[in-house]
Structure formats: structure tokens, C-alpha cells
């Protein structure tokens, strides 16, 4: 438990009853959660090692209710932790004792779909997958596809600027978001963007995306929906050496091919996922790539034939082009269940740094060494095209000191990512998890500039204040 939380404001804790009485008239009775048992549900998120019982939980049903709650909290100096589905792996939605949780999960409707303009207006508590499901009958989908897409909300996706396996071609949340309705800290409701493509003035939409619930609460979003390709097909390649897999990825891109996804798994990850998904992964290779292309059957075949030819000099030990829908689904099932499958055999923490892809062999070697030095195992799955790593550091939570060792290894790995020219987080966000490492990546001037921008929206540090910026050296404006 090495990550510190700010000391709770005793004055707020002492006024809890009064605050609850103030919140009660602002939302429906069942939308205000006050009992300890029910609040427990909201004490953590996907970073379950850290838990804090919130002061109360409010689950509004409308933008107006959110505005009323925000206004009340601002006037009473109550901190607010916004929450979508609580799947954050970086602790972005973890509560604080002196803060309320403001959850948007009840606002989960599709408000309008416009196929001609390729947009959907949704309430922010809708799940990522539900957007795609709402437009699938016309052959459309919402592109960013984080592994948690069944559960995670678009609100959380916007807060974290979430990615997924297909962002090499389709981009991440910020590239697929056209507008938001957002409640500012004082309860003012603003519309940023809309159905058009670019900003009239400063790109506030781009700023809000990835701001981790520190600038306001997004209650509605206009997202870009895309027509799905005619078809998609993955190929699977196994290599004897990490270097060969990395060089193969570089050669494919060098030949002018941008596959819709290029996923990498190392030997331990292959073994874990194969045991769970029975996808027919090769167990005798050091590295495996799943490479998916899109288009008509003929286009997929043409592109995959080019890729297979490009791969030859790197001596793939296994090379299999999917021959059926069922085979494709099995290949993806293994990859998409990597976190869950790992969770069956071990406790783990999932890292999320990004590196320049050219440094891959070196970084993987160092990750292995770092984990070995702590006496821990590691499995690597990641998005090879964009260099976004997900080392899963394996440990046993029942062995005293192991989690601390895993955290120490994780910290070393993230520092390594920055050292080779990458960053601390590619798609999971800073949250509390990487907060204290921000100075590895940013100078004091970099961080102060970010905090001054934060201060434009929340000068009193009421919004999700335990996250993103190191607790020491904060500035308001």
C-alpha cells in the first residue's frame, strides 16, 4: 500500500449528516446511497488493492440533477469523484472519505442516431459496447474497443481517453468524439462541440478527453459512428525470437500496410490464454502476433498474402491465416480474455506504458530482468503497432510483501518506458497508480502548465483531487 491519499477533511466528515440532508432533495430517494454496506460497492474500481469508503454516493438521472449536485458540492466545499462503471485500472474512480461519488451509470440511453451524419448522441453512462449494439443493425459500430467494453461507460472512456485493440487504424476516444454536454464545477451546463468536425475556438473537447474527471462531469456525448468494413480476418504468427516478431511488425508497416490490429503476446501470455480459450495458439514459440486486416474477402486475402510474404524473412515458426468466422473468434477470444485468464491463475497488476516500437526487444528483455530481480513472473500482451505495452506482473497477494514487490517492479517498468522515449500510460490513465511518477515524465514547468489549465475549471481542487498530479507542489492557477 504505497500510494498515499490526501488526509480527509475532518470538517467535511463532521458535517456528513448535514451534507446528506442537503443532497437528498436534489435526486430521487433511491439515487442517494448512504448506508455503509451500499457505499462499500463504490469504494474501489479496477485497482482493487486500494479502497476508500465514500461520504455518499449519488446516482443522478438527468443533466439537471448532476448540475444541482455539483452546485451544492461547490457551495459546501464537498469534493466529487465522478464515476462511470468503475472499471479503471489506474484507480481513477477510487473514492475518498471526504468526497461523494457522482455516478452516471443511470444515464445510459441512446438519445439519437444519425446515420447520414455518422453520429450518435448518448447519455454518458451507456456502456461502450451498447453504442455499437445500438447501431449494428445498419452495419455501423463505435470504434474504440477497450477490453472492458462490455462494462465500461463512455463517460469513463472520455475521462481516460480509452483506446483498444483497433486504434492503429481507428484512433482512440479523442479521435472519435465530436461533442459533450458537460457540467462544470459550479453547476453550469456547457455544450462543447456538436455534430460538426472541428472546434470554433480552443479545442476544449480535446482537453476534456483524457482529463480524468478533473474538469467537470460529462453527461452526454456525441460520438462518431463508423460503417464496419465488409469483413475482417486475422492471421496468427509465432516466432522463435522477440526480435523477429518486432522486426516483422516494422516490415509490415514499412511496406505501407496498416493492419486494423497487431497484437503481441509472449510465451507466458500465450500459455495462460491458450489454457483458457483453447484458441489453438502455438505453445512452442517465444512471441506471437495476431494481425488482423479488413475489407472484402478478396481484399483480406490479397492483404494477408502480402503480409505472409513480408513475414517470411523473419522465419515464422507458425503461420496460420484464419479460415472461418469461428476460427477468427477463437483467435480473438484468447487475446481479449488475457487479463481474465491471468486472473484465474495468479494475482497481477497490469502496466500500461507506451514505448517507441523500435525499442521493443530491449524493453522486453529489461522487463523480464526487472521482474526476475523481484522474484516475480511476468506475462506480456500488447498492441504492437502502437507500442502500448501491457506487462502483467504476477504475484501472490497472500504472501506478505509480494504486492509491494510487484508495485516496485511496475514502477521500474514505467520509468523504463519513459527512459526509452515513451510514456507512463497509453490508455489506462494516470489515476492514483501513476500519479507519483508524473515527475519522471514531466518537468515542473510541464506539470504547472497542466495544473494551471486544471485551475481554470476547478480552482478549489474539488474534482477528483487525489488523482493525476503528485500531492506535493500543486498550484491552483
Amino acid at each position, binding site marked *: 500500500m504505497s500510494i498515499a491519499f490526501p488526509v480527509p477533511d475532518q470538517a467535511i466528515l463532521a458535517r456528513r449528516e448535514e451534507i446528506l440532508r442537503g443532497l437528498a432533495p436534489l435526486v430521487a430517494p433511491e439515487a442517494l446511497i448512504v448506508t455503509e454496506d451500499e457505499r462499500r460497492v463504490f469504494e474501489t474500481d479496477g485497482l482493487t488493492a486500494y479502497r476508500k469508503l465514500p461520504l455518499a454516493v449519488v446516482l443522478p438521472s438527468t443533466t439537471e440533477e448532476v448540475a444541482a449536485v455539483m452546485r451544492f458540492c461547490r457551495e459546501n466545499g464537498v469534493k466529487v469523484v465522478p464515476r462511470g462503471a468503475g472499471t479503471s485500472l489506474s484507480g481513477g474512480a477510487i473514492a475518498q472519505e471526504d468526497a461523494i461519488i457522482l455516478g452516471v451509470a443511470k444515464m445510459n440511453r441512446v438519445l439519437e442516431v*444519425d*446515420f*447520414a*451524419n455518422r*453520429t450518435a448522441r448518448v447519455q454518458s453512462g451507456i456502456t461502450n459496447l451498447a453504442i455499437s449494439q445500438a447501431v449494428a443493425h445498419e452495419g455501423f459500430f463505435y470504434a474504440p474497443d477497450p477490453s472492458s467494453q462490455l462494462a465500461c461507460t463512455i463517460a469513463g472512456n472520455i475521462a481516460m481517453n480509452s483506446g483498444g485493440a483497433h*486504434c492503429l487504424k481507428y*484512433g*482512440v476516444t*479523442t479521435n472519435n468524439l465530436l461533442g459533450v454536454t458537460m457540467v*462544470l464545477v459550479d453547476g453550469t451546463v*456547457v455544450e*462543447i462541440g*456538436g455534430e*460538426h*468536425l*472541428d472546434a*470554433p*475556438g*480552443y*479545442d*476544449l473537447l*480535446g*482537453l476534456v*478527453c*483524457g*482529463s480524468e474527471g*478533473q474538469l467537470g462531469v460529462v453527461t452526454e456525448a456525441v460520438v462518431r459512428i463508423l460503417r*464496419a*468494413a465488409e469483413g475482417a480476418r486475422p492471421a496468427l504468427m509465432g516466432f522463435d525470437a522477440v526480435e523477429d516478431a518486432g522486426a516483422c511488425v516494422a*516490415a509490415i*508497416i*514499412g511496406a*505501407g500496410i496498416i493492419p486494423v490490429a497487431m497484437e503481441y503476446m509472449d510465451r507466458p501470455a500465450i500459455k495462460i490464454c491458450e489454457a483458457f480459450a483453447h484458441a489453438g495458439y502455438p505453445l512452442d514459440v517465444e512471441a506471437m502476433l495476431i494481425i488482423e486486416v479488413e475489407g472484402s474477402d*478478396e*481484399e483480406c486475402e*490479397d*492483404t494477408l498474402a502480402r503480409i505472409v510474404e513480408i513475414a517470411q524473412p523473419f522465419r515464422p515458426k507458425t503461420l496460420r491465416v484464419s479460415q472461418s468466422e469461428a476460427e477468427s473468434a477463437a483467435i480473438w477470444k484468447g487475446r481479449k480474455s488475457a487479463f481474465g485468464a491471468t486472473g484465474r491463475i495468479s494475482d497481477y497488476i497490469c502496466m500500461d506504458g*507506451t514505448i*517507441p*516500437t*523500435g525499442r521493443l526487444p530491449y524493453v522486453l528483455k529489461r522487463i523480464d530482468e526487472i521482474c526476475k530481480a523481484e522474484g516475480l513472473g511476468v506475462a506480456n500482451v500488447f498492441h504492437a503497432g*502502437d*507500442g502500448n505495452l501491457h506487462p502483467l506482473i504476477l504475484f501472490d497477494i497472500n504472501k506478505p510483501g509480494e504486492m509491494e514487490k510487484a508495485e516496485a517492479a511496475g514502477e521500474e517498468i514505467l520509468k523504463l518506458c519513459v527512459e526509452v*522515449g*515513451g510514456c507512463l*500510460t*497509453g*490508455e489506462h*490513465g*494516470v489515476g492514483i497508480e501513476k500519479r507519483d511518477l*508524473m515527475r519522471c515524465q*514531466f518537468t515542473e514547468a*510541464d*506539470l504547472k*502548465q497542466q495544473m*494551471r*489549465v*486544471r485551475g481554470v475549471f476547478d480552482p478549489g481542487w474539488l474534482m477528483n483531487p487525489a488523482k*493525476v498530479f503528485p500531492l506535493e507542489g500543486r498550484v491552483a*492557477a
Partner: protein
Amino acid sequence: MTPLTPTCESDACAIIADAAARRMPLAVAGGGTKAGIGRPAQTEATLSSAALTGVTLYEPAELVIAALAGTPLSEVVRALADRGQQLPFEPADYRALLGSSGKPTIGAVAAANVSGPRRIMAGAARDSLIGVRFVNGRGEAVKSGGSVMKNVTGLDLVKLMAGSWGTLGFVTEVTFKVLPRPERSATLALAGLSDSRAVEALCAAVASPFEVTGAAHLPAALDGGEARTLIRIEGFSFSVDHRLGELKRLLAGYGPAEAIDGERAGALWAAVRDATLLAEPHDSAVWRVSTAPAKGPALMAQVARALQARWFYDWSGGLVWLATDPAGDAGAATIRGAVATQGGHATLVRAPAEVRAAVDVFEPQPAPLMRVTRDIKAAFDPAGVLNPGRMYAGV
């Protein structure tokens, strides 16, 4: 007056810190080719990135290029072309439209968020911009983003810098994500369609699975010829053939479609990208209107009822370039009225300085967003020395 031309980041820091201490407003410039865009600002000196040049990092296999801000765009484009790659967002060159000379710079492409027809598929400059270094109005060197394409570490100041027209910081270095140049590009042209039928056809094409990378409509009234509706696809030759066939079938109801390849198509798309279709007569005012694609024709019908205008559509109808009489407010009240009805925003890209001083060049914002805009300006440039007033009065 001779511009101030720092040769390194720390030079720029010293110049801006000094200007801030003396409250001396600076005009921030790259090649100066877009200096005519924005409100005329009262400045005492020009701070230019002309001496900050050169590609600083290019890793074709990682799809990343970085260059100092003053590097001519043409130099970046050439370096990429040598390795079969390109900037995905198709940056425009407004020299012909604005009657300016000099060389557009890569830093200004970022600072003005200049994107062309491929924006509908590949995103804008802001979507490809993954890292930026700049000096803020306090004279501090700041970086945001980096050289990897997936990065959510901290607030995304990169997006704020894109399209801030030098009002938040003096950009010193930019890093872009790049993509392979397509093996082949082909364009389908439909003839004689009305604006609304044309935009319907464009929206149908863009909403197909065939990856349209350009969707423009040039109405008959633009040059007195026949209306042309253009749909571009790019990629490997085999795939382009397949998709051309599919699109022809999809659009059969809109009349015969001619396929245009090669230089003729390239010249058409360059004219759409750079808005040279409205360059003449050079004394007309030119607006750039951004709206939901399917709403473009209704917006223009509303404008045309009240104003003499010539226009064309890009971005499947979502971007309208429009030339008006520069007299009075150059049509601002009518155009902004139509925008208020249909949604979107309008920018006065070209007009005499006195019109740009009197009319809001950038779309006025609702009060709460204007408050945020002013406070953001102050968060970067508290002394108000960087391009003050270029986007909004007092910002």
C-alpha cells in the same frame, strides 16, 4: 521591423520572458503565409520560428516524424515521400487564397490545425499531432505529449495548442503521426446534381464500408460549368478497383459516374484542399463554415436567400467554403444566423483588415465557454503578449 528569430528554445524563452516583463505584445509567426487570418492585432514586434528548422526525428517503421516549428511544410512532406509516407490529414496551402508569399511551416500547420479533404477519414491535424514543445507567455519551455501515438499521461495540452493560432504559446517543435502514402488514388465524379442530392450521395458514400477519403461537391454556380460531385478512394490498386466498382453500384441512382485517375484528379483535390476555387475575385470575402454534413445544403440555402455568394462543399457537406461581398459585415449576420439554426460555426478566413477588426473572425462563444477561453489564455499567457486579440478581443 526585423522579426525576432530565436535559434533555440532557450533563446525563445528569454525573448518571451523579456516581452512579458515589459508587456510588449508579440506577433507569433511561422512563414507568415496565414498572417492574414484572424483579427488584426496590435503588436510591437514579430516573433518568428524561421530560424528553428530541421527534422529532428523520423522513424518510418514507428510512423512518427518530429520537426522544429519553422521547418517548411514542403521539407517535411518531401522527407516523408522519400520513404513512401505522408501526413494523413492533407495539410492545405492557403497562399493562393490569401495572396501571401513565403513558405508554410510545419509549426503553423499545427498551430492553425490545418486539415484537408482526408480529414473525414484520417482525422484533422490535431488528431495526428502527438507531441508539441512550446514556450508559454511566461517564457517557460513546456512539453505535452511525446513521440508515441498512444499517450494519455496528464492533460492533453497538445489538443489545446492545435488551433490556438499562437495565442497560447510559441511552438518550437511538433511531432506527428504519419501513414503510408496510398499506392493509388481514384476519384468518382457525378455530374449535374443539386446541392442536396449531391450531399445525400456523398453521405451515402462516406457511410459505406468502402473507405472514402475525400467527398466534395462543386455546385454549378461556382464557375458556371456543370456541378461536379467528387468521391475519392485510396489504397492498394487491387482494393481500389474493388471499391470503385462497389461505389459505382451504390451510387447508380445518382446518374453516371466517371472515374478520374492521376493528375487531373490530383489537381481537383488540391483545389478543394487549398480553396483556390474561391481565390478569384481576390477582393471577395471568404468564409469557412463547419456543420453537420447533411445540414450543409440547408445552411447554404438559408444563406443564399439573403446573400450573393459562391460556395463549395468538402467533408461530405460538413465544410462549406463560401465567398461573399466584403462590404459591410461581409455577410456575417446572415451566415452566423444560419449557423445558429443548423449548428456549427463560421470563420472569416479572408477579408480586408477593417472588416476583420469589426466582425468576429472566429465564431463567438456562449458566455461560460468564453469565460473558459479567457481563463485558458491567462493560464498560458498571463501578460497577454502572444498574438493578443488574434482570435477574440482580449484573448
